[in-house]
Protein backbone atom coordinates (compact mmCIF):
# COMPACT_ATOMS: atom_id res chain seq x y z
CA UNK A 1 0.00 0.00 0.00
CA UNK A 2 2.78 2.41 0.93
CA UNK A 3 4.44 1.81 -2.41
CA UNK A 4 1.44 2.37 -4.70
CA UNK A 5 -1.73 3.65 -3.07
CA UNK A 6 -0.23 6.45 -0.98
CA UNK A 7 1.84 7.96 -3.84
CA UNK A 8 -1.18 7.61 -6.12
CA UNK A 9 -3.42 9.40 -3.61
CA UNK A 10 -0.87 12.23 -3.21
CA UNK A 11 -0.62 12.59 -7.00
CA UNK A 12 -4.39 12.69 -7.44
CA UNK A 13 -4.94 15.20 -4.62
CA UNK A 14 -2.13 17.52 -5.70
CA UNK A 15 -3.10 17.25 -9.37
CA UNK A 16 -6.74 18.15 -8.72
CA UNK A 17 -5.71 20.93 -6.39
CA UNK A 18 -3.62 22.57 -9.11
CA UNK A 19 -6.61 22.43 -11.47
CA UNK A 20 -9.05 23.77 -8.87
CA UNK A 21 -6.77 26.77 -8.32
CA UNK A 22 -7.96 28.20 -11.63
CA UNK A 23 -11.64 28.05 -10.63
CA UNK A 24 -11.46 29.13 -6.97
CA UNK A 25 -9.21 32.19 -6.43
CA UNK A 26 -9.09 31.45 -2.68
CA UNK A 27 -7.16 28.25 -3.39
CA UNK A 28 -4.30 30.20 -4.93
CA UNK A 29 -2.55 30.66 -1.59
CA UNK A 30 -2.41 26.90 -1.02
CA UNK A 31 -1.39 26.09 -4.58
CA UNK A 32 1.36 28.67 -4.22
CA UNK A 33 2.56 26.81 -1.13
CA UNK A 34 2.55 23.55 -3.07
CA UNK A 35 4.60 25.16 -5.84
CA UNK A 36 7.13 26.27 -3.23
CA UNK A 37 7.32 22.68 -1.98
CA UNK A 38 7.94 21.59 -5.56
CA UNK A 39 10.84 24.05 -5.84
CA UNK A 40 12.38 22.67 -2.63
CA UNK A 41 11.89 19.07 -3.79
CA UNK A 42 13.50 19.81 -7.17
CA UNK A 43 16.49 21.31 -5.35
CA UNK A 44 16.72 18.18 -3.19
CA UNK A 45 16.55 16.04 -6.32
CA UNK A 46 19.66 17.88 -7.57
CA UNK A 47 21.45 16.91 -4.36
CA UNK A 48 20.39 13.30 -4.93
CA UNK A 49 21.75 13.55 -8.47
CA UNK A 50 25.12 14.77 -7.22
CA UNK A 51 25.17 11.99 -4.58
CA UNK A 52 24.44 9.42 -7.28
CA UNK A 53 27.23 10.72 -9.54
CA UNK A 54 29.59 10.55 -6.55
CA UNK A 55 28.52 6.98 -5.66
CA UNK A 56 28.91 5.66 -9.21
CA UNK A 57 32.31 7.26 -9.71
CA UNK A 58 33.64 6.28 -6.28
CA UNK A 59 32.68 2.67 -7.03
CA UNK A 60 34.44 2.91 -10.40
CA UNK A 61 37.60 4.24 -8.72
CA UNK A 62 37.57 1.68 -5.88
CA UNK A 63 37.17 -1.21 -8.37
CA UNK A 64 39.67 0.33 -10.79
CA UNK A 65 37.23 -0.18 -13.65
CA UNK A 66 38.00 0.92 -17.24
CA UNK A 67 38.79 4.66 -17.50
CA UNK A 68 38.70 5.08 -13.71
CA UNK A 69 41.21 7.91 -14.08
CA UNK A 70 38.48 10.11 -15.59
CA UNK A 71 36.37 9.47 -12.49
CA UNK A 72 39.23 10.72 -10.31
CA UNK A 73 39.32 13.97 -12.30
CA UNK A 74 35.52 14.28 -12.09
CA UNK A 75 35.46 13.70 -8.33
CA UNK A 76 38.36 16.08 -7.72
CA UNK A 77 36.66 18.82 -9.76
CA UNK A 78 33.31 18.24 -8.11
CA UNK A 79 34.69 18.25 -4.56
CA UNK A 80 36.82 21.34 -5.21
CA UNK A 81 33.89 23.35 -6.60
CA UNK A 82 31.50 22.21 -3.83
CA UNK A 83 34.06 23.16 -1.15
CA UNK A 84 34.72 26.60 -2.70
CA UNK A 85 31.15 27.39 -3.67
CA UNK A 86 29.11 25.81 -0.87
CA UNK A 87 31.09 24.47 2.08
CA UNK A 88 33.28 27.53 2.76
CA UNK A 89 30.37 30.05 2.52
CA UNK A 90 28.32 27.74 4.77
CA UNK A 91 31.08 27.60 7.39
CA UNK A 92 31.47 31.38 7.27
CA UNK A 93 27.73 31.85 7.61
CA UNK A 94 27.33 29.39 10.51
CA UNK A 95 30.22 30.84 12.52
CA UNK A 96 29.53 34.45 11.51
CA UNK A 97 32.98 34.89 9.96
CA UNK A 98 33.12 38.14 8.02
CA UNK A 99 36.82 38.30 7.21
CA UNK A 100 38.11 37.25 3.79
CA UNK A 101 39.79 33.91 3.18
CA UNK A 102 42.18 34.71 0.41
CA UNK A 103 44.72 32.75 -1.58
CA UNK A 104 46.98 34.54 -4.08
CA UNK A 105 44.85 37.64 -3.72
CA UNK A 106 41.57 35.93 -4.53
CA UNK A 107 38.70 35.01 -2.23
CA UNK A 108 38.39 31.28 -1.50
CA UNK A 109 34.79 31.34 -0.37
CA UNK A 110 31.79 32.12 -2.61
CA UNK A 111 30.71 32.02 -6.24
CA UNK A 112 30.76 35.66 -7.32
CA UNK A 113 33.40 37.51 -9.34
CA UNK A 114 36.83 37.76 -7.73
CA UNK A 115 36.63 34.29 -6.18
CA UNK A 116 38.59 31.12 -6.98
CA UNK A 117 35.27 29.50 -7.91
CA UNK A 118 34.75 32.03 -10.71
CA UNK A 119 38.41 31.75 -11.68
CA UNK A 120 37.99 28.01 -12.25
CA UNK A 121 34.67 28.63 -14.00
CA UNK A 122 36.17 31.20 -16.39
CA UNK A 123 39.45 29.46 -17.09
CA UNK A 124 38.33 25.81 -17.22
CA UNK A 125 34.57 25.30 -17.44
CA UNK A 126 33.87 28.01 -20.04
CA UNK A 127 36.58 27.00 -22.56
CA UNK A 128 35.95 23.27 -22.12
CA UNK A 129 32.20 23.51 -22.64
CA UNK A 130 32.75 25.97 -25.49
CA UNK A 131 35.11 23.51 -27.14
CA UNK A 132 32.61 20.65 -26.87
CA UNK A 133 29.94 22.69 -28.62
CA UNK A 134 32.35 24.10 -31.20
CA UNK A 135 33.19 20.54 -32.25
CA UNK A 136 29.58 20.22 -33.41
CA UNK A 137 30.36 22.35 -36.48
CA UNK A 138 32.96 19.82 -37.58
CA UNK A 139 30.73 16.80 -36.97
CA UNK A 140 27.87 18.48 -38.84
CA UNK A 141 30.19 19.12 -41.80
CA UNK A 142 31.33 15.50 -41.73
CA UNK A 143 27.73 14.20 -41.51
CA UNK A 144 26.70 16.53 -44.34
CA UNK A 145 29.40 15.08 -46.60
CA UNK A 146 29.29 11.41 -45.65
CA UNK A 147 25.75 10.66 -44.49
CA UNK A 148 23.17 13.14 -45.80
CA UNK A 149 22.05 11.37 -48.99
CA UNK A 150 19.20 12.69 -51.12
CA UNK A 151 17.50 9.41 -51.95
CA UNK A 152 13.78 10.32 -51.79
CA UNK A 153 11.35 13.19 -52.36
CA UNK A 154 11.24 13.84 -48.59
CA UNK A 155 15.03 14.02 -48.39
CA UNK A 156 15.09 16.35 -51.43
CA UNK A 157 12.58 18.71 -49.78
CA UNK A 158 14.59 18.64 -46.57
CA UNK A 159 17.85 19.36 -48.39
CA UNK A 160 16.42 22.21 -50.47
CA UNK A 161 14.75 23.84 -47.44
CA UNK A 162 17.89 23.39 -45.32
CA UNK A 163 20.13 24.93 -47.97
CA UNK A 164 17.84 27.93 -48.49
CA UNK A 165 17.50 28.58 -44.74
CA UNK A 166 21.21 28.07 -44.05
CA UNK A 167 22.25 30.45 -46.77
CA UNK A 168 19.35 32.87 -46.25
CA UNK A 169 20.04 33.30 -42.53
CA UNK A 170 23.55 34.67 -43.11
CA UNK A 171 24.51 37.87 -44.98
CA UNK A 172 26.24 36.02 -47.83
CA UNK A 173 22.80 34.78 -48.95
CA UNK A 174 21.63 38.24 -49.99
CA UNK A 175 24.97 38.85 -51.69
CA UNK A 176 24.28 35.80 -53.89
CA UNK A 177 20.64 36.74 -54.55
CA UNK A 178 18.74 39.66 -53.01
CA UNK A 179 15.64 37.57 -52.40
CA UNK A 180 17.41 34.81 -50.44
CA UNK A 181 16.67 36.11 -46.92
CA UNK A 182 13.03 36.74 -47.91
CA UNK A 183 12.71 33.17 -49.16
CA UNK A 184 14.36 31.89 -45.98
CA UNK A 185 11.94 33.95 -43.86
CA UNK A 186 9.00 32.55 -45.86
CA UNK A 187 10.13 28.98 -45.14
CA UNK A 188 10.44 29.79 -41.43
CA UNK A 189 7.12 31.64 -41.29
CA UNK A 190 4.92 29.40 -43.40
CA UNK A 191 5.86 25.70 -43.85
CA UNK A 192 8.02 25.55 -40.70
CA UNK A 193 5.39 27.38 -38.67
CA UNK A 194 2.57 25.12 -39.87
CA UNK A 195 4.49 21.95 -39.03
CA UNK A 196 5.76 23.21 -35.66
CA UNK A 197 2.32 24.47 -34.67
CA UNK A 198 0.76 21.12 -35.55
CA UNK A 199 3.36 19.29 -33.48
CA UNK A 200 2.94 21.68 -30.53
CA UNK A 201 -0.86 21.44 -30.53
CA UNK A 202 -0.68 17.65 -30.86
CA UNK A 203 1.81 17.44 -27.99
CA UNK A 204 -0.32 19.77 -25.86
CA UNK A 205 -3.43 17.63 -26.43
CA UNK A 206 -1.39 14.56 -25.53
CA UNK A 207 -0.15 16.26 -22.35
CA UNK A 208 -3.72 17.21 -21.35
CA UNK A 209 -4.90 13.67 -21.96
CA UNK A 210 -2.01 12.14 -19.96
CA UNK A 211 -2.50 14.70 -17.19
CA UNK A 212 -6.19 13.84 -16.89
CA UNK A 213 -5.39 10.13 -16.83
CA UNK A 214 -2.81 10.69 -14.06
CA UNK A 215 -5.06 12.78 -11.81
CA UNK A 216 -7.93 10.34 -12.32
CA UNK A 217 -5.72 7.46 -11.31
CA UNK A 218 -5.99 5.71 -14.70
CA UNK A 219 -2.36 6.20 -15.71
CA UNK A 220 -0.08 4.55 -13.11
CA UNK A 221 3.13 3.84 -15.01
CA UNK A 222 4.90 6.68 -13.19
CA UNK A 223 4.65 4.64 -9.96
CA UNK A 224 7.18 2.12 -11.28
CA UNK A 225 7.10 -1.56 -12.02
CA UNK A 226 6.98 -3.61 -8.88
Amino acid at each position, binding site marked *: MLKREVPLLITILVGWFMVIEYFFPGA*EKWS*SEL*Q*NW*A*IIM*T*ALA*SVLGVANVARINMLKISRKQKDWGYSVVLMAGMILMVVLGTLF*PMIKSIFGIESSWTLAGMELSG*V*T*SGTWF*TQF*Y*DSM*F*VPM*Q*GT*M*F*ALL*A*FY*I*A*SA*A*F*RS*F*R*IRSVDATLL*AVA*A*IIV*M*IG*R*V*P*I*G*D*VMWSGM*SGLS*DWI*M*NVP*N*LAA*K*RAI*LIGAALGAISTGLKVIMGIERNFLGGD
Partner: protein
Amino acid sequence: MSEPTKLQKLEKIDRRWVFLVMLVAVSIPLFVSVDLPLKVTPAAQSFYDSIEALQPGDIVYYAADYDPGSKPELDPMLMATLDHLCRKDVKIVSACLWPAAPPLLEAGLNTVAVEKYGKEYGVDFVHLGFKEGKENVMVQLGKSFRDVFPQDYYGTKVEDIPLLAQKKANGEWMVDKFDDVKMIVNISAGYPGTKEWVQQVRSRYNIPIISGCTAVSAPEYYTYLRSDQLSGLLGGLSGAAEYEDLVNLPGFGIQGMAAQSLGHVAIILMILVGNILYFINSRK
Protein backbone atom coordinates in the same frame (compact mmCIF):
# COMPACT_ATOMS: atom_id res chain seq x y z
CA MET B 1 36.37 -7.61 -56.09
CA SER B 2 37.49 -4.63 -58.20
CA GLU B 3 39.67 -1.84 -56.86
CA PRO B 4 37.61 1.24 -55.78
CA THR B 5 37.82 4.16 -58.23
CA LYS B 6 39.13 7.60 -57.27
CA LEU B 7 35.60 8.95 -56.94
CA GLN B 8 34.59 6.05 -54.69
CA LYS B 9 37.65 6.70 -52.54
CA LEU B 10 36.75 10.40 -52.44
CA GLU B 11 33.24 9.57 -51.21
CA LYS B 12 34.74 7.60 -48.32
CA ILE B 13 37.45 10.16 -47.59
CA ASP B 14 38.84 10.33 -44.04
CA ARG B 15 36.60 12.69 -42.11
CA ARG B 16 39.61 14.62 -40.85
CA TRP B 17 39.91 16.16 -44.36
CA VAL B 18 36.31 17.36 -44.00
CA PHE B 19 37.20 18.84 -40.60
CA LEU B 20 40.14 20.64 -42.24
CA VAL B 21 37.91 22.16 -44.94
CA MET B 22 35.54 23.41 -42.21
CA LEU B 23 38.44 24.82 -40.19
CA VAL B 24 39.77 26.69 -43.22
CA ALA B 25 36.29 28.06 -44.03
CA VAL B 26 35.63 29.47 -40.56
CA SER B 27 39.23 30.73 -40.21
CA ILE B 28 39.36 32.82 -43.41
CA PRO B 29 37.75 35.90 -41.76
CA LEU B 30 40.55 35.87 -39.16
CA PHE B 31 43.06 36.68 -41.90
CA VAL B 32 41.01 38.43 -44.58
CA SER B 33 38.47 41.18 -43.91
CA VAL B 34 35.10 40.05 -45.29
CA ASP B 35 32.46 42.79 -45.21
CA LEU B 36 28.95 41.50 -45.75
CA PRO B 37 25.81 43.67 -45.75
CA LEU B 38 23.34 42.86 -42.95
CA LYS B 39 19.61 42.74 -43.51
CA VAL B 40 17.38 43.04 -40.44
CA THR B 41 14.55 40.52 -40.22
CA PRO B 42 11.09 41.52 -38.92
CA ALA B 43 11.63 39.24 -35.87
CA ALA B 44 14.77 41.15 -34.83
CA GLN B 45 13.13 44.49 -35.62
CA SER B 46 10.20 43.69 -33.31
CA PHE B 47 12.66 42.66 -30.55
CA TYR B 48 14.36 46.05 -30.92
CA ASP B 49 11.04 47.94 -31.07
CA SER B 50 9.84 46.26 -27.85
CA ILE B 51 12.83 47.54 -25.88
CA GLU B 52 12.76 50.88 -27.67
CA ALA B 53 9.16 51.38 -26.50
CA LEU B 54 10.16 51.18 -22.83
CA GLN B 55 10.34 54.43 -20.85
CA PRO B 56 13.09 55.55 -18.44
CA GLY B 57 12.38 54.08 -15.00
CA ASP B 58 10.43 51.11 -16.36
CA ILE B 59 11.43 47.75 -14.91
CA VAL B 60 12.13 44.56 -16.86
CA TYR B 61 12.69 41.03 -15.62
CA TYR B 62 15.83 39.72 -17.30
CA ALA B 63 16.07 35.91 -17.51
CA ALA B 64 19.50 34.67 -18.59
CA ASP B 65 18.95 30.96 -19.16
CA TYR B 66 22.05 29.57 -20.82
CA ASP B 67 25.51 28.22 -20.09
CA PRO B 68 29.02 28.56 -21.54
CA GLY B 69 28.24 26.08 -24.34
CA SER B 70 26.00 28.71 -25.94
CA LYS B 71 28.14 31.66 -24.92
CA PRO B 72 29.41 32.52 -28.42
CA GLU B 73 25.85 32.69 -29.75
CA LEU B 74 24.09 34.27 -26.79
CA ASP B 75 26.67 36.51 -25.10
CA PRO B 76 26.47 39.07 -27.95
CA MET B 77 22.70 39.22 -27.37
CA LEU B 78 23.17 39.58 -23.62
CA MET B 79 25.65 42.42 -24.01
CA ALA B 80 23.62 44.26 -26.65
CA THR B 81 20.28 43.94 -24.81
CA LEU B 82 21.81 45.04 -21.50
CA ASP B 83 23.38 47.99 -23.32
CA HIS B 84 20.07 48.94 -24.93
CA LEU B 85 18.23 48.67 -21.59
CA CYS B 86 20.84 50.76 -19.77
CA ARG B 87 20.84 53.31 -22.55
CA LYS B 88 17.06 53.60 -22.15
CA ASP B 89 17.56 53.98 -18.37
CA VAL B 90 15.40 50.93 -17.73
CA LYS B 91 15.83 49.13 -14.38
CA ILE B 92 16.70 45.45 -14.48
CA VAL B 93 15.70 42.60 -12.15
CA SER B 94 17.68 39.61 -13.37
CA ALA B 95 17.94 35.93 -12.47
CA CYS B 96 18.81 32.56 -13.98
CA LEU B 97 17.20 29.12 -14.21
CA TRP B 98 20.39 27.49 -15.49
CA PRO B 99 22.97 26.68 -12.80
CA ALA B 100 25.94 27.74 -14.92
CA ALA B 101 24.38 31.03 -16.02
CA PRO B 102 24.92 33.43 -13.05
CA PRO B 103 28.62 34.18 -13.72
CA LEU B 104 27.82 34.95 -17.38
CA LEU B 105 25.05 37.33 -16.34
CA GLU B 106 27.25 38.89 -13.67
CA ALA B 107 30.04 39.50 -16.18
CA GLY B 108 27.58 41.13 -18.60
CA LEU B 109 26.07 43.37 -15.91
CA ASN B 110 29.51 44.41 -14.64
CA THR B 111 30.82 45.18 -18.13
CA VAL B 112 27.78 47.04 -19.42
CA ALA B 113 25.75 48.39 -16.50
CA VAL B 114 28.58 49.22 -14.09
CA GLU B 115 31.66 49.92 -16.20
CA LYS B 116 30.07 51.46 -19.29
CA TYR B 117 26.98 53.23 -17.88
CA GLY B 118 27.98 53.70 -14.24
CA LYS B 119 24.73 52.13 -12.98
CA GLU B 120 24.45 51.38 -9.30
CA TYR B 121 23.88 47.82 -8.11
CA GLY B 122 20.68 47.46 -6.11
CA VAL B 123 19.30 50.74 -7.37
CA ASP B 124 19.37 50.39 -11.16
CA PHE B 125 19.74 46.65 -11.45
CA VAL B 126 19.84 43.53 -9.34
CA HIS B 127 21.14 40.00 -9.89
CA LEU B 128 19.08 37.44 -7.97
CA GLY B 129 21.21 34.46 -8.98
CA PHE B 130 20.09 30.91 -9.74
CA LYS B 131 17.14 28.94 -8.44
CA GLU B 132 16.43 25.28 -9.15
CA GLY B 133 12.80 24.42 -9.90
CA LYS B 134 12.36 25.29 -13.57
CA GLU B 135 8.67 25.92 -14.47
CA ASN B 136 7.68 26.08 -10.79
CA VAL B 137 10.08 28.97 -10.30
CA MET B 138 8.65 30.78 -13.33
CA VAL B 139 5.11 30.50 -11.99
CA GLN B 140 6.09 31.50 -8.47
CA LEU B 141 8.01 34.55 -9.68
CA GLY B 142 4.69 35.83 -11.01
CA LYS B 143 3.38 35.78 -7.44
CA SER B 144 6.40 36.99 -5.47
CA PHE B 145 10.06 37.52 -6.38
CA ARG B 146 11.06 37.59 -2.69
CA ASP B 147 9.39 34.24 -1.94
CA VAL B 148 11.56 32.60 -4.61
CA PHE B 149 14.68 34.69 -4.04
CA PRO B 150 14.88 35.80 -0.39
CA GLN B 151 18.50 36.80 -1.11
CA ASP B 152 20.30 38.05 -4.20
CA TYR B 153 23.34 36.45 -5.86
CA TYR B 154 25.66 38.11 -3.34
CA GLY B 155 23.70 36.93 -0.28
CA THR B 156 22.06 40.31 0.42
CA LYS B 157 18.50 40.06 1.71
CA VAL B 158 16.05 41.48 -0.84
CA GLU B 159 14.61 43.78 1.85
CA ASP B 160 18.00 45.49 1.91
CA ILE B 161 18.10 46.06 -1.86
CA PRO B 162 16.65 49.52 -2.65
CA LEU B 163 15.14 48.48 -6.00
CA LEU B 164 13.12 45.72 -4.32
CA ALA B 165 12.57 47.32 -0.91
CA GLN B 166 10.19 50.14 -1.85
CA LYS B 167 6.57 49.88 -0.76
CA LYS B 168 3.36 51.32 -2.18
CA ALA B 169 0.95 53.42 -0.08
CA ASN B 170 -1.15 50.30 0.58
CA GLY B 171 1.86 48.51 2.04
CA GLU B 172 2.47 46.19 -0.94
CA TRP B 173 5.96 45.88 -2.41
CA MET B 174 6.46 48.08 -5.48
CA VAL B 175 8.56 45.50 -7.30
CA ASP B 176 7.69 41.95 -6.33
CA LYS B 177 5.97 40.15 -9.19
CA PHE B 178 5.43 40.16 -12.92
CA ASP B 179 2.53 42.64 -12.55
CA ASP B 180 5.15 45.16 -11.43
CA VAL B 181 7.43 44.81 -14.47
CA LYS B 182 6.86 45.86 -18.08
CA MET B 183 8.40 42.94 -19.88
CA ILE B 184 10.41 39.74 -19.63
CA VAL B 185 13.63 39.61 -21.65
CA ASN B 186 14.76 36.01 -22.00
CA ILE B 187 18.10 34.84 -23.35
CA SER B 188 17.56 31.13 -23.81
CA ALA B 189 19.61 28.10 -24.81
CA GLY B 190 16.94 25.43 -24.32
CA TYR B 191 15.13 23.91 -21.36
CA PRO B 192 14.04 25.69 -19.23
CA GLY B 193 13.82 28.68 -21.51
CA THR B 194 11.66 30.62 -23.91
CA LYS B 195 9.17 27.81 -24.58
CA GLU B 196 8.49 27.39 -20.86
CA TRP B 197 8.33 31.15 -20.23
CA VAL B 198 5.67 31.43 -22.92
CA GLN B 199 3.73 28.36 -21.79
CA GLN B 200 3.82 29.09 -18.05
CA VAL B 201 3.95 32.86 -17.80
CA ARG B 202 2.82 34.74 -20.94
CA SER B 203 -0.93 34.15 -20.66
CA ARG B 204 -1.09 33.49 -16.91
CA TYR B 205 0.36 36.91 -16.02
CA ASN B 206 -0.37 38.72 -19.29
CA ILE B 207 3.18 40.04 -19.63
CA PRO B 208 5.05 40.60 -22.91
CA ILE B 209 8.09 38.40 -23.51
CA ILE B 210 10.96 38.89 -25.95
CA SER B 211 13.48 36.16 -26.60
CA GLY B 212 17.03 35.81 -27.83
CA CYS B 213 17.72 32.15 -28.45
CA THR B 214 20.13 29.73 -30.10
CA ALA B 215 19.69 29.19 -33.85
CA VAL B 216 18.62 25.59 -33.29
CA SER B 217 15.70 26.67 -31.06
CA ALA B 218 14.51 29.55 -33.26
CA PRO B 219 12.29 27.58 -35.71
CA GLU B 220 10.14 26.35 -32.81
CA TYR B 221 9.72 29.85 -31.40
CA TYR B 222 8.46 31.35 -34.67
CA THR B 223 5.12 29.77 -33.70
CA TYR B 224 4.98 31.95 -30.60
CA LEU B 225 6.18 35.02 -32.49
CA ARG B 226 3.43 34.78 -35.09
CA SER B 227 0.77 34.33 -32.40
CA ASP B 228 2.12 37.40 -30.51
CA GLN B 229 2.98 35.26 -27.53
CA LEU B 230 6.51 36.49 -28.18
CA SER B 231 6.90 40.18 -28.94
CA GLY B 232 10.31 39.79 -30.57
CA LEU B 233 12.83 37.11 -31.44
CA LEU B 234 16.57 36.99 -32.09
CA GLY B 235 17.63 33.65 -33.54
CA GLY B 236 21.27 32.63 -33.15
CA LEU B 237 24.36 34.63 -34.00
CA SER B 238 22.69 36.16 -37.06
CA GLY B 239 19.89 37.48 -34.82
CA ALA B 240 22.52 38.91 -32.49
CA ALA B 241 24.28 40.57 -35.43
CA GLU B 242 21.01 42.13 -36.66
CA TYR B 243 20.31 43.48 -33.19
CA GLU B 244 23.85 44.85 -32.81
CA ASP B 245 23.29 46.62 -36.10
CA LEU B 246 19.98 48.07 -34.88
CA VAL B 247 21.43 49.37 -31.61
CA ASN B 248 24.54 50.55 -33.48
CA LEU B 249 26.85 48.52 -31.29
CA PRO B 250 29.05 46.35 -33.54
CA GLY B 251 30.32 43.40 -31.52
CA PHE B 252 31.00 39.71 -31.73
CA GLY B 253 27.66 39.07 -33.48
CA ILE B 254 28.58 41.18 -36.51
CA GLN B 255 32.21 40.00 -36.42
CA GLY B 256 31.06 36.39 -36.43
CA MET B 257 28.81 36.76 -39.48
CA ALA B 258 31.63 36.31 -41.99
CA ALA B 259 32.81 33.10 -40.31
CA GLN B 260 29.27 31.80 -40.01
CA SER B 261 28.51 32.67 -43.65
CA LEU B 262 31.56 30.76 -44.87
CA GLY B 263 30.81 27.89 -42.47
CA HIS B 264 27.29 27.58 -43.89
CA VAL B 265 28.65 27.70 -47.44
CA ALA B 266 31.13 24.94 -46.55
CA ILE B 267 28.36 22.71 -45.16
CA ILE B 268 26.19 23.30 -48.24
CA LEU B 269 29.13 22.41 -50.50
CA MET B 270 29.68 19.25 -48.43
CA ILE B 271 26.05 18.22 -48.94
CA LEU B 272 26.23 18.90 -52.69
CA VAL B 273 29.63 17.26 -53.30
CA GLY B 274 28.73 14.26 -51.11
CA ASN B 275 25.53 13.70 -53.07
CA ILE B 276 27.12 14.23 -56.48
CA LEU B 277 29.76 11.61 -55.61
CA TYR B 278 27.06 9.26 -54.30
CA PHE B 279 25.01 9.74 -57.48
CA ILE B 280 27.98 9.09 -59.79
CA ASN B 281 29.28 6.13 -57.80
CA SER B 282 25.87 4.46 -57.47
CA ARG B 283 25.37 4.58 -61.27
CA LYS B 284 28.59 2.64 -61.90
